[in-house]
C-alpha cells in the first residue's frame, strides 16, 4: 500500500527515529512503512494519521489493483 509517510515526515522536519518515538514503534517499522513493504495495523495507521492531522485515507492510499497483484 502506498503512503505519504515520508513526505509528511520530511515536511515536519522529523527523522525516522523521531517519528518512531512519537508513535512508539521501532525505526525499522517506519523504514518498512515508508518503503511500502509493511502495512500497518489500524491502530498504528490511526496514530500516524492523527499525528499529522490527516485522515487515514489521506495518509495511506488504498488501491484494489495492488491488493490483487500482491
Amino acid at each position, binding site marked *: 500500500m502506498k503512503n505519504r509517510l515520508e513526505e509528511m515526515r520530511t515536511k515536519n522536519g522529523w527523522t525516522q527515529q523521531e517519528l518512531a518515538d512519537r508513535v512508539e*514503534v521501532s525505526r*525499522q517499522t517506519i523504514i518498512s512503512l515508508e518503503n511500502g513493504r509493511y502495512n500497518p*495495523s489500524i491502530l498504528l495507521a490511526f496514530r500516524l494519521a492523527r499525528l499529522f492531522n490527516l485522515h487515514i485515507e489521506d495518509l495511506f492510499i488504498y488501491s484494489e489493483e495492488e491488493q490483487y497483484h500482491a
Partner: protein
Amino acid sequence: MRKSTHWIANRMRLGWITLLAGFLVVSLGIFMEVGFSSLPYNLRIVTGVGILLVGVGAGTLIRYRAALKDEQSLRRLTAEERDERTVMIRTRAGNRAYIVSAALVYTGLMWASFAANGSLPPLAGDGLWFFLAACVLVPFGVYVASVLIDQRSF
C-alpha cells in the same frame, strides 16, 4: 507508574526469578553430583540447565537495567520490544517452527508405530539421540531463519 516502566519492571522481575531459579538448579546439580554420585544419570545436565537459566536471567537483567537509566532508552526499548512489526515477524516464525516441530514429532510417532509391528527398525541409541536433537534444533533453526527472512521482506 508509566505503562512502559511497569512493563520493564515485570521483565526485570522475570529476570530475577530466572536468575534465582538458575542458582537453585546449579546448586541442586552440584549437590546431587557430590551426594548421589552413584545415580545412573549424568547429573551435569542438571547443572548445565542451571547455568543456562543463570545466563538468561543475568542477560535479561543487564538488558533492562541499562534501559531504566534514562527515559528515552526506556521508551525506545519498550517500543522495539512491543513493536507490532516485530511481534508479527516473531509470530509468523513461531507458527512455522511449530508446524516443523509437529511434523518431526509426528514422523517419530509414525516410526515408533511401524517399529512396534516390525515394519521398521526401532529407533534407539544414537539414532534416537540424533532424532530428538533434530526435534529441538530444526524448529529453532526454522524460527531463526524465518525471523531473518521476514525482517528483509517486511
